[in-house]
């Protein structure tokens, strides 16, 4: 054996660690078990990679998602075979739906036992095939290095997504020659990043001639990296056009800017939805015409020419037919659009644009996010306005659970920078926010990280609060406690005549005591005048905190485009929805 090869002889488990190091991985989220003991042993013997022990494998994947979304780097997960792998599945699908790059290494029974219903055997590649962008079962120790590196390439290139590597235990133990490098590509998977220049020119022509244009941008701009957000800002300002972003795109354009119309869609603003409905040119960059955006398809923006920039060809013309399709990376295409725009004599129609803005200002004047303030009861919107006002100077990272609180967070917390907003959009996974906050906090130890939560969602992954305590991750779980699965209750009120079938959060724990029992800090506020004090106290504590912010129980989230309705059938308040905000006060 040549001497240089000697240093490359190692066990499969050591190869995994080596490849992770070569990929620049500093942190992994995991949970041990029989089928990954060799990897845990290899982890024990090194100091480069920090392992964050979670409390349930589902939490590991969400934590890795938070880590990934807030850093732009892939998140790495390590779990055991069988139940370890199946527990991870929800997180994998979540990452698939929201285009988050994740590498998930799962243990597997030894190769000679595969297929024998061995102890803790599950067909992990079979189960996760539709849950991942791609997956692998490694059958030779020589393949460990190449597969690891290829997995990182696949997870992070093109439309990002989760990749599973199933590692049988015997492969982890066996010794072989390490190979592979971070430069590994995939021989067939080579996504196109540069957009077709002719299509880009055609798009710029349309943009220049527009009279009622709107930018509709999404998570793809965040995926593309901070540079794409910069270019988006540049281009939007150059054109003077209005812009709205999806839930997944918040932060790619500053919420504090006057050209921003707020979020669009089911719980988006009146002005954003009407601008989408009435526009003559729609410029979609990195958004996927999700049904929460389009409402009823045959009434969606009926009179517009549509431009769609997306790195995934299958997102184009999937739900909505577009006029100009550009397959490519948002950053690259924006750069070219700006070049083409500057090279030509493209000047927007000033008069038409001024009229369009006049119209938009009239819509804005509806002040669609307004709510009835209350002296005695904390309105959830008020709590979030105060949270935003008191924390914004620290540029906090915000994660959320799923429900009304998530929508209110999107509406009332303004994001001026990308990668500061982590939410489960596509799958809508309750229980995402707490572990995601842990992942964000691990990546940004000194930042303020807040999980805007509902009480029901908090109960889904509350065990990860212990993870935060163990790893000194001083996350703040800010619960808007309405004692209901509020979003479910709202639909029941509007569509099921108020039959609140199983949507009351009965037998809730005392969240303050719960936080204390888990060695964190618990705080509570029940009156509007206590909110500021509790937020300030929360911010001052360098430990994980749960805030039990007891809010109005029956408040509904508006605006709302009921599913299957058109954008211009948007409901602005309880009266529009045919319901009254009944005996709320009596219930508190």
């Amino acid at each position: 054996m040549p001497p240089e090869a000697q240093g490359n002889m190692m066990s499969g488990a050591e190869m995994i660690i080596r490849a992770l190091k070569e990929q620049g991985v500093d942190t992994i989220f995991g949970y041990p078990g029989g089928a990954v003991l060799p990897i845990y042993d290899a982890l024990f013997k090194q100091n480069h990679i920090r392992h964050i022990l979670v409390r349930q494998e589902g939490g590991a994947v969400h934590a890795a998602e938070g880590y990934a979304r807030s850093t732009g780097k892939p998140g790495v997960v390590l779990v055991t075979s069988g139940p370890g792998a199946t527990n991870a599945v929800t997180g994998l699908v979540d990452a698939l739906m929201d285009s988050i790059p994740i590498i998930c290494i799962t243990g597997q029974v030894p190769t000679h036992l595969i297929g024998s219903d061995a102890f803790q055997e599950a067909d992990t590649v079979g189960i996760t095939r539709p849950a991942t962008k791609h997956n692998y079962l490694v059958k030779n120790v020589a393949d460990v290095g190449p597969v690891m590196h290829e997995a990182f390439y696949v997870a992070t290139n093109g439309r990002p997504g989760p990749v599973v590597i199933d590692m049988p235990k015997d492969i982890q133990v066996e010794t072989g020659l390490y190979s592979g490098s971070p430069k590994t590509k995939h021989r067939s998977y080579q996504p196109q990043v540069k957009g077709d220049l002719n299509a880009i020119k055609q798009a710029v022509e349309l943009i220049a001639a527009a009279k009622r244009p709107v930018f509709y941008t999404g998570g793809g701009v965040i995926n593309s990296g901070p540079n794409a957000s910069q270019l988006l800002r540049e281009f939007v300002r150059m054109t003077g056009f209005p812009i709205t972003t999806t839930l997944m795109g918040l932060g790619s354009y500053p919420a504090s800017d006057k050209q921003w119309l707020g979020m669009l869609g089911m719980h988006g603003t009146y002005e954003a939805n009407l601008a989408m409905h009435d526009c003559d040119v729609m410029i979609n960059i990195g958004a996927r015409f999700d049904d929460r955006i389009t409402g009823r398809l045959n009434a969606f923006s009926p009179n517009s020419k549509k431009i769609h920039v997306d790195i995934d060809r299958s997102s184009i013309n999937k739900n909505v037919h577009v006029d100009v399709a550009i397959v490519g990376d948002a950053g690259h295409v924006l750069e070219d659009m700006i070049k083409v725009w500057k090279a030509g004599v493209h000047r927007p129609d000033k008069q038409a644009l001024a009229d369009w803005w006049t119209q938009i200002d009239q819509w804005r004047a509806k002040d669609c996010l307004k709510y009835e303030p209350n002296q005695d009861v904390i309105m959830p919107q008020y709590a979030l306005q105060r949270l935003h006002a008191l924390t914004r100077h620290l540029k906090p990272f915000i994660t959320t659970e799923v429900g009304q609180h998530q929508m209110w967070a999107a509406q009332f917390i303004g994001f001026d920078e990308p990668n500061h907003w982590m939410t489960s959009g596509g799958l809508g996974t309750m229980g995402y926010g707490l572990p995601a906050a842990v992942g964000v906090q691990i990546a940004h130890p000194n930042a303020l990280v807040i999980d805007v939560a509902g009480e029901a969602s908090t109960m889904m992954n509350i065990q990860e609060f212990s993870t935060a305590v163990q790893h000194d991750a001083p996350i703040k779980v800010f619960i808007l406690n309405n004692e209901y699965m509020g979003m479910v209750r709202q639909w029941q009120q509007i569509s099921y005549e108020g039959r609140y079938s199983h949507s009351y959060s009965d037998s809730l724990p005392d969240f303050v005591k719960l936080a204390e029992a888990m060695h964190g800090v618990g705080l509570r506020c029940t009156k509007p005048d206590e909110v500021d004090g509790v937020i300030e106290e929360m911010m001052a504590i360098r430990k994980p905190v749960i805030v039990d912010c007891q809010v109005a129980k029956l408040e509904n989230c508006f605006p709302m485009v009921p599913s299957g309705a058109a954008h211009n059938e948007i409901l602005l308040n309880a009266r529009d929805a045919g319901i009254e905000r009944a005996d709320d006060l009596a219930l508190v």
Partner: protein
Amino acid sequence: MRPQQPIERHTMAVLVDNEAGVLARVIGLFSGRGYNIESLTVAEVNHAEGLSRITIVTRGTPAVIDQIEAQLERLVPVHKVSDLTTEGPAVERELALVKVAATGDPRVESLRLADAFRARVLDTTTDSFTFEVTGSSEKIDAFIELMKPLGLVDVSRTGVVAIKRGAGAM
């Protein structure tokens, strides 16, 4: 909404890495997204490079067909997708093994019809024939229909394989 589009039949050729699970990926894509598979065949076509070719016959509106092509293309082990129905003329063939158990007149008749269809006799016993017939799926359908009253007992079909006409490769 766009006017209702007509349902079309398309034949697609998909060049893939010949690796474990690749067929499951393709089939899972069709079942998971509700596309239909009329016929699917797969075999290795380039051993040196480890490439297999899958031929799929499917039906859908033009928008659905376009989605199928895009969805296939984004599977990681897929090298190339060709819609043979739209990319110029192509030839399609299917092979079937058809067993007829008969004696007397029906036996003679089956042999006569087989001859008309240019089917070959692969196996003979005193009371059966196994024919090999090649052609378009319609031709094979027709042959099988004709064999039914004559004592058809078993059929095995390969599914469609297809290739572009002319000198060009996929």
